């Protein structure tokens, strides 16, 4: 199959969905910009022009409410935020209104507002430009929340979101945009709620999403050199969450590490641990480990930032600790996003 980068896959999905459904439009601050949100909206702008790829004022709350209104009248808005952190300003419209619309108004139709938001990381993005809000939005019934890890999923989950009737949040990690992978040419939907075994293994299960899937795979490579077999589960969507896949894997391995880009407390890592404790607690041979950022805001200073973001090394260390009688150390890796060069 031909390969695309993650940003190209998103761009292609957008263009294909806009071609197939004239109701789809893209709106967001700077979506018509030359740079096109890491390139993802540029092709759509070039093809469909400023009536369907629309720059908006810096009014996140209204933009979200406007998207709800447009969706209620049959349009299919795709709203893009260059940082997920701006979503706090849109949260009332998304959580108090979009998420509840179908249920609260008696199941007479939904408002399929699709929101893409970029999670920043690296080059000193800092405390308010690098948060990944999967658990915060994932808490609320009525939303779908996904975190594609691969170009194919970035395309397929966006296609699914733009065809379905559910308000959806797609979180994209900036570190993924340049990664390449096989992507089907057609607009093939990937369903929400079905995870995937990114890499089969027998000794430890690492559950992750988005960028952390790649960190987990790198950790798995590293540990394979030591004869430790790691299974990596990519949940793909955090709501719905594929409980069966997670539990089946842990039932086999008896060991669980959860790796996430957001904090442990009340985070994705907590939920995955809880699902296991509810369903397959007796398969656990070791305490669950959460590999997440430490309990502080993201700092800017380079050495602190490096220490803040969870990496393959930390995942590998967590796995190692669990495997009885395994080696106590592995060689150190560099960050999967280390290729990024400034200035930013």
């Amino acid at each position, binding site marked *: 199959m031909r390969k695309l980068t993650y940003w190209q896959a998103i761009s292609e999905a957008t263009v294909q969905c806009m071609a197939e459904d004239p109701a789809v439009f893209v709106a967001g601050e700077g979506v018509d910009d030359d740079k096109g949100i890491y390139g993802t909206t540029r092709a759509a702008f070039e093809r469909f022009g400023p009536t369907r790829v629309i720059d908006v004022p810096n009014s996140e709350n209204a933009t979200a409410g406007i998207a709800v209104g447009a969706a209620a009248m049959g*349009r299919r808005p795709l709203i893009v935020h260059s940082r997920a952190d701006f979503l706090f300003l849109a949260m009332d419209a998304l959580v108090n209104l979009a998420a509840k619309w179908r249920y*609260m*108004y008696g199941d007479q139709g939904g408002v399929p507002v699709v929101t893409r938001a970029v999670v920043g990381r690296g080059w000193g993005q800092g405390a308010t430009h690098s948060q990944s809000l999967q658990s915060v939005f994932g808490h609320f019934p009525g939303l779908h929340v996904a975190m594609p890890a691969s170009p194919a999923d970035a395309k397929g989950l966006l296609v699914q979101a733009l065809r379905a009737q559910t308000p959806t949040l797609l979180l994209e990690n900036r570190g993924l945009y340049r990664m390449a992978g096989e992507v089907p040419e057609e607009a093939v939907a990937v369903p929400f709620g079905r995870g995937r075994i990114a890499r089969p293994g027998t000794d430890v299960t690492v559950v992750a999403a988005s960028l952390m899937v790649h960190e987990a795979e790198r950790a798995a490579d590293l540990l394979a050199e030591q004869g430790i077999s790691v299974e990596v589960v990519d949940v793909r969507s955090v709501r719905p969450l594929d409980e069966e896949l997670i539990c089946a894997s842990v039932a086999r391995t008896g060991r669980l590490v959860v790796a996430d880009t957001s904090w442990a407390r009340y985070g994705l890592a907590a939920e995955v641990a809880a699902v296991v404790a509810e369903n397959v607690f007796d398969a656990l041979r070791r305490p669950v480990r959460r590999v997440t950022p430490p309990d502080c805001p993201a700092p800017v200073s380079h050495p602190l930032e490096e220490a803040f973001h969870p990496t393959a090394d930390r995942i590998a260390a967590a796995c190692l600790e669990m495997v009885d009688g395994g080696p106590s150390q592995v060689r150190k890796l560099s960050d999967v996003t280390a290729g990024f060069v400034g200035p930013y």
Partner: protein
Amino acid sequence: MTTNDRLRLVRDMVRIRCAEETLADLYRDEQLMRTPTHFSIGQEATAVGVCAATRRTDVVYSAHRSHAPYLAKGGDLHALVAELYGKATGCAGGRGGSVHLVDHAAGFGGSAAILGEMIPVAVGAAWAFAMEGAPRVALTFFGDGASEEGVFHESLNFAALHRLPVVFVCENNQYSIASPLSARQPAGTSIWQRALGYGMAASRIDGNDVFAVHEAARGAVEAARAGHGPHLLELDTYRWREHVGPNWDEDGAYRTHAEVASWMGRCPIRVAADALRAEAPSIDARIDTWRAECAEEVARAVDFARAGAFPDVTDLLSGVYEPQPLAATTGRN
């Protein structure tokens, strides 16, 4: 406007008044409508005057004080009452209650309980109409208090920027719960004037004069439909009952009996009747007739609501999403 048109406005007000008064009594006495309810008694001219200027294909959104806009836009009375009783036959299947009314067939797009929330939604609906080139207008009712929410301004800016077919209808009833305007907005300013800062047409109208409201609304709606962009109407009016619930509250805690009485003296139904008396001398008799007719209609709606079944508890989880399987293990998404 013909006399008949004007009579119809009065009739609509009488109908809403009658429905709300009956519902308020039942709400208080029976305690079966378990949903926080904000009556519009005293404010009927705003909803009636504005909605009479719309077509069925136009869409109206409102805030929590939603019965009057819903009924004025043609929302189903039976479904409203059933909703208040929490029945499956309610307009939102009993899920939404008084603050979440909806009637798509009538062009009532929804009401919401969070201040300001439906303002951008109307703008988005108007944007959809503009994108489609449909000759439709979106309208949004909200209170003076909601105009303090930032989203009000964001929405005005966007609507004016794109010259969207939306009419912002601010029912200024002078209070946000118990807070007077003077505690919330700078002295000497007014809401309609803020719209001017966006280059938007705006006007302030006596909201207890249904004919004045209607004329202004007709102008605003038709201008919007013709592509001349949004309009903000600030309509001065007054609620007679307590903020939420069926009772009177003129006890001086935040407003006086004299203040309430003075506004009741300017009852929108009486004001309209007085204005019509010369051209329609039988107006008082007509009002009596309408009242009787409406009492019957409301009684039927109440019977309908009472007779309806509650939603089935086994359906608790349906309608959160378009149909999809839940996790087999825990029944969660």
